[in-house]
């Protein structure tokens, strides 16, 4: 291509002025800070959220220590409020959502046969907003006290009258920052899934994890603006003197609950649908059977996505919204159990008659199915309004949502970690330690949260920092605390397993589980360019159909060995031109917490500095090309178009609408 060569010299002066030289390194600290590779961003999400998981877990242990005995005095009431608020906020916004995002980022492009996500730099921007937003929230501990209004921050308790400190302000701006990142990420991943599928990857051939990710990201896209508005209203109440949640001035505190739970209930499915997707990948692989009723699984996931918008009032039955609203939402809450139940039966149907291999990943998947069923059943009991009136704000509710979020989401995520670890890191986690991890966690989990059902029905309210010995809650609280520390022991086993694998683990084979989906036709760990050749898809479970067929009697016949299908480079020394890393997503993201600090302390100068950082970051990002011209060091690049046409979709067209990308709220 001599034409290309000819253009380059004349084009050089037109390059926009640079404040920072375009980074080239893809390793080391700069490499991680400037990466736009969906796989590295996925790893960043995973590692960061695991650290927050440990922090949130530490907060949980503090809570359990305080409640282990009556009249506990480990924490004061004030600190206790901060700890349980940050435990909930951390586990929802800084652990389960970003851990799911880790799987989304790493796996979606690989499962649909793409080179990267649709907007790689926007993807990096979302990650940095997550990290900086989390750091912003936690900095409140050092700056006078963490948020203390509960993870759902009910008005009017969060008003300036009842919460005069900066605690709630940190919560408001922290969640706003995280919300912008989540919305951008959701739009990015939705476009990726719909638009970047490999040829032949029709919607009903997509891996089920990608399907559940699509539903979860649509929920995110539509749920985040609702909480954004709620947070802005409370912010205006606190800082501008409006009266949105002030009953004396005609404001309605129930509006906060409506807006919060209109976000909050879809949020529940945002937290659990990705784990459902993971388990739906793991169970077929280890049962050596296709997913039972794949289309039904897809449609029940979509049905959950729609119905998830029509059940939020069951969080508010105790408010007294009248018999009509209450009955309608009672019925819809019972109905949403149907698609969830369909999924549970399909997982059982997949295992039924399969030749099950009891690997650690499968243990966690089966643990998910059983524990999630328990959590689902206790959830349906909330649909019965008279029963719910008894359960509201009691430990029964705490038990219920830990069964869905820990027994569901976290067990599902661990299943995914054991399953895809070789894909990501090229080594196999130790199976024996993995099974220890599973059993200790499962037993600890049930010991910790099972008794909370009993405590709740005995009348123990949520969020109390201590209780008197005469209440009769001593025994089960003590048991629960033992369970919490057992979970911590299980987590330590996992950390030890990762460390051991990292140091001494044997390299993983390329297809260690005899998998079904096409992410496994790339070598382990995945090379930075993903696929050398875009896969052509002709089946659901494409990889499986490359390896197996059925004979006339319906028996499985092996028709190919997996190594034959793994995409390897013919010339390993060949240089492949990748989209260039960039500083600007990080710079732009850095502006938002600066704006946040300025707003928390009402220092407009700082906020304006933050705004300037944000806007300059976005403009520099918009003006730089997504891919730098080929490096003269590799002259062959400009001439050959090998592999380049398969690589990530450049962002060139968005570059001219920089403001639009980041203006949500």
């Amino acid at each position, binding site marked *: 291509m001599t034409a290309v060569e000819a253009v380059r010299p004349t084009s050089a002066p037109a390059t926009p002025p640079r404040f920072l030289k375009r980074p080239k390194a893809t390793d080391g600290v700069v490499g991680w800070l400037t990466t736009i590779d969906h796989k590295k961003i996925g790893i960043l999400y995973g590692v960061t959220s695991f650290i927050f998981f440990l922090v949130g877990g530490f907060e949980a242990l503090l809570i359990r220590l305080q409640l282990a005995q009556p009249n506990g005095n480990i924490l004061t009431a004030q600190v206790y409020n901060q700890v349980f608020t940050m435990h909930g906020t951390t586990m929802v916004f800084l652990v389960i959502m970003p851990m799911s995002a880790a799987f989304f980022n790493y796996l979606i492009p690989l499962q649909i046969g793409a080179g990267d996500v649709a907007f790689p730099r926007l993807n990096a921007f979302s990650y940095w907003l997550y990290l900086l937003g989390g750091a912003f929230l936690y900095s409140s501990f050092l700056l006078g006290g963490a948020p203390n209004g509960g993870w759902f921050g009910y008005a009017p308790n969060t008003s300036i009258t009842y919460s005069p400190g900066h605690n709630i302000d940190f919560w408001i701006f922290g969640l706003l920052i995280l919300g912008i990142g989540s*919305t951008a990420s*959701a739009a990015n991943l939705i476009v990726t899934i719909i638009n970047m599928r490999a040829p032949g990857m029709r919607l009903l051939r997509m891996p089920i994890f990608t399907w559940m990710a699509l539903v979860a990201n649509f929920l995110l*896209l539509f749920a985040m*603006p609702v909480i954004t*508005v709620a947070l802005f*209203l409370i912010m205006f109440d606190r800082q501008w003197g409006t009266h949105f949640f002030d009953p004396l001035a005609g404001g309605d505190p129930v509006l906060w609950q409506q807006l919060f739970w209109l976000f909050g209930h879809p949020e529940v499915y945002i937290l659990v649908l990705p784990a459902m997707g993971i388990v739906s990948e793991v169970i077929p692989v280890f049962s050596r059977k296709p997913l039972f009723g794949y289309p039904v699984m897809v449609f029940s996931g979509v049905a959950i996505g729609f119905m998830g918008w029509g059940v939020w009032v069951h969080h508010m039955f105790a408010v007294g919204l009248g018999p009509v609203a209450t009955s309608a939402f009672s019925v819809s809450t019972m109905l949403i159990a149907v698609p969830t139940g369909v999924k549970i039966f399909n997982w059982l149907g997949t295992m039924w008659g399969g030749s099950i291999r009891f690997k650690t990943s499968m243990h966690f998947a089966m643990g998910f199915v059983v524990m999630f069923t328990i959590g689902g059943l206790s959830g349906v009991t909330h649909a019965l309004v008279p029963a719910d009136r008894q359960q509201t704000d009691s430990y029964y509710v705490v038990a219920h949502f830990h069964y869905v979020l820990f027994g569901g989401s976290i067990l599902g995520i661990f299943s995914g970690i054991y399953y895809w670890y070789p894909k990501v890191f090229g080594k196999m986690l130790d199976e024996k330690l993995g099974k220890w991890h599973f059993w200790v966690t499962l037993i600890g989990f049930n010991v910790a949260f099972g008794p909370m059902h009993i405590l709740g029905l005995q009348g123990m309210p949520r969020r109390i920092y201590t209780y008197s010995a005469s209440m009769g809650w001593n025994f089960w609280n003590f048991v629960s605390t033992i369970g919490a520390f057992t979970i911590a022991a299980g987590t330590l086993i996992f950390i030890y397993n990762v460390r051991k694998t990292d140091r001494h683990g044997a390299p993983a084979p390329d297809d260690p589980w005899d998998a079904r989906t096409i992410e496994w036709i790339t070598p382990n760990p995945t090379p930075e360019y993903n696929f050398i050749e875009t896969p052509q898809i002709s089946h659901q479970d494409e990889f499986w159909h490359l390896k197996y067929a059925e004979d006339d009697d319906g028996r499985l016949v092996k028709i190919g060995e997996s190594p034959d299908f793994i995409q390897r480079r013919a010339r390993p020394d060949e240089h492949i031109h990748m989209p260039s890393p960039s500083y600007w997503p990080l710079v732009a993201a850095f502006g938002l917490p600066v704006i946040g600090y300025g707003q928390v302390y009402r220092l407009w100068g700082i906020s304006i500095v933050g705004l300037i950082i944000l806007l300059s970051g976005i403009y520099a990002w918009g003006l730089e090309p997504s891919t730098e011209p080929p490096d003269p060091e590799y002259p062959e690049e400009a001439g050959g178009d090998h592999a380049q046409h398969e690589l990530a979709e450049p962002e060139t067209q968005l570059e*001219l609408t920089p403001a*639009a990308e980041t203006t949500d709220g």
Partner: protein
Amino acid sequence: MAELTAHGAHPPSAAHATATGISNAKMGMWAFLGSECLLFGALISTYILYRHKAVSGPTPHQLYDIPFTSVSSFVLLMSSLTMVLAVSAIQRGDERRLRVWLATTALLGSVFIAGQIYEFTSFIRRGMTIKTNVTSGAFYVMTGFHGVHVTIGIVMLLSLVNLSVRGKLPQSKAEVVEIAGLYWHFVDIVWIIIFTVVYLIH
């Protein structure tokens, strides 16, 4: 141009082949606008909830100057027309008219924003601030959010004019203008809803 070199390795038409045929950037904008619907939906619902809940006056309904706001709404509506003309100009490769219509759109948007600033200051002078009552708070937050969106749109339009002046917005990038237009029309439609529901229906 730097971009040309970067993409020189593959033909421009093949570079954006997507599974649906819609470019990523355009679909991304649609997704973003979907999210924005919920944002304005929640803001408008809040206003509707609070429109008769003020315990002390004055309320927006006592102060609205419907003829004035009708004119500024008309100006904003006309900016959608000039936006369409801008898209049509770049699709025909007429860069001069592109700049004219983009600048006109930005100007009409600015007139609308000026009208909003005038409206806010006149309301404040007549004793209705954001603190006065729940209705005034809901009114200022909702229309303020909309005003910020229009302002971002104006910045976007002026950036496009600037790029075009520097010769960086050729006919081949017509879709960029089209995508900016999607945003602009969306903000316009939101205003039609606000004007109808908030100003006209009492």
